[in-house]
């Protein structure tokens, strides 16, 4: 068994120092670009600056859900606690990011489309995904650490990702494809300025690092939880 220092706060150079520091620096640079350096988009004006974070929030969340499926499959095959902890952490942070997509999306849509919510294919898909992973976390909470429920959650983690392509096709057929925001007939519209591309790249890096950091923190606390439970069990036995 590992020593006590594993449980208590020993600093890990990568996840405790480098990752948060990098995240902070990247986030500040991204903010600087999004609010100061980048010019206003010609057609949508200042509101378009929501886009820089909104889009990456969505991509990180979807990436997180794919990760949930991968770690779930790994957990089912090997029963590895690490895999299960990462599945849970990715689902939780992914749900947080999806929630933010659903908040920033309407705030962008209102000034551009005139309504907070439209049944746009992407918005629709996002809200259904939100429900799938909210149910996933709900199942885990109801299970209270019961191994059977953890296995069920892993099955749901895999099934949830299988649903995504079907969902994408369904909502596209259903609502048709709305004019993509970046592709407009107006030659002035879109990401014309090179600093805008940098804004996209930098906010992508910042949110990617933040996602990784939050997931690693969340998974680590779950690991400590597991060890504590194990030790409590051991000392009871003695």
């Amino acid at each position: 068994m590992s020593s006590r220092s594993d449980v208590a706060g020993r600093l890990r150079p990568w996840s405790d120092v480098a990752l948060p520091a990098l995240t902070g620096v990247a986030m500040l640079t991204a903010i600087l670009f999004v609010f100061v350096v980048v010019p206003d988009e010609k057609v949508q004006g200042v509101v378009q600056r929501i886009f820089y974070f909104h889009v990456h929030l969505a991509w990180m969340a979807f990436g997180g859900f794919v990760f949930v499926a991968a770690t779930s499959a790994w957990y089912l095959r090997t029963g590895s606690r690490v895999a299960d902890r990462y599945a849970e952490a990715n689902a939780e942070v992914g749900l947080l990011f999806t929630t933010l997509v659903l908040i920033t999306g309407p705030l962008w849509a209102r000034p551009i489309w005139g309504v907070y919510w439209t049944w746009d294919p992407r918005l629709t898909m996002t809200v259904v995904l939100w429900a799938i992973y909210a149910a996933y976390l709900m199942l885990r909470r109801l299970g209270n650490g019961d191994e059977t429920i953890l296995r069920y959650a892993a099955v749901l983690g895999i099934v949830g990702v299988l649903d995504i392509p079907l969902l994408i096709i369904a909502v596209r057929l259903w609502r048709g494809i709305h004019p993509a925001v970046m592709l407009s007939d107006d030659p002035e519209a879109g990401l014309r300025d090179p600093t805008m591309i940098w804004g996209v790249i930098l906010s992508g890096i910042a949110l990617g690092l933040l996602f990784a950091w939050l997931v690693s923190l969340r998974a680590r606390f779950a690991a400590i939880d597991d060890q504590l439970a194990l030790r409590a069990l051991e000392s009871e036995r003695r």
Partner: protein
Amino acid sequence: MWSIVRKDLAIERRTGEMLSSLLLLALLVVLLFAFSLEPERLRGAEFVAGILWTTLLLAGTLALNRSFVLEREAGAWTALALCPLDRGSIYLGKTIANLIFLLVAAVLLLPLLALFLGTTGIAPSWLLPASIVLGTAGFAAVGTLFSAMASRTRAREVLLPLLSFPILAPLLIAAARTTAAGLVGEPLEHVSAWLVLLGAFDLVFLTAGWLTFDYVLEE
């Protein structure tokens, strides 16, 4: 596999529990729709199809909840898990039994709905049975897998719809569309993409359930 189908159907024939409760529930849901929305405005194939599938999903989920409860309560779960059949076949057997219940319910419900909603201009084509079979098959595939999972938890009545409704979203969209098209005899070209989507949904989730049921049945 067929022995499980036969067993479930035999129990059902004796008690009639599942089907009668499912139908009664479906009827009540239809009434709820009529009371809460202006019934005179709910005319047309689209409403018949939409309400049919919403009702089937709501009532079907509640009925599917019962699907594994019998095994849990009678202590037959271990017997089911120990039975010499491979787990995938148990899943398929359960799914087929549930599919038959849902199909019967859909077939009884559809004319009732058309009648209640006073729809005119109904000219069913073969698309109608196709959409109903494909739709209920996907529903049974997902519902059976999740009801086995939910039957293990404290809050199973809430959990099954919570787990299955979002996953069933693409199925509901496609099934309502194709059923509406089948009711008025629209040509196939209009909905061929939807039919393919329904078929893909069935295939994906039947396979997923068949492969993962091993982990669900294990204690």
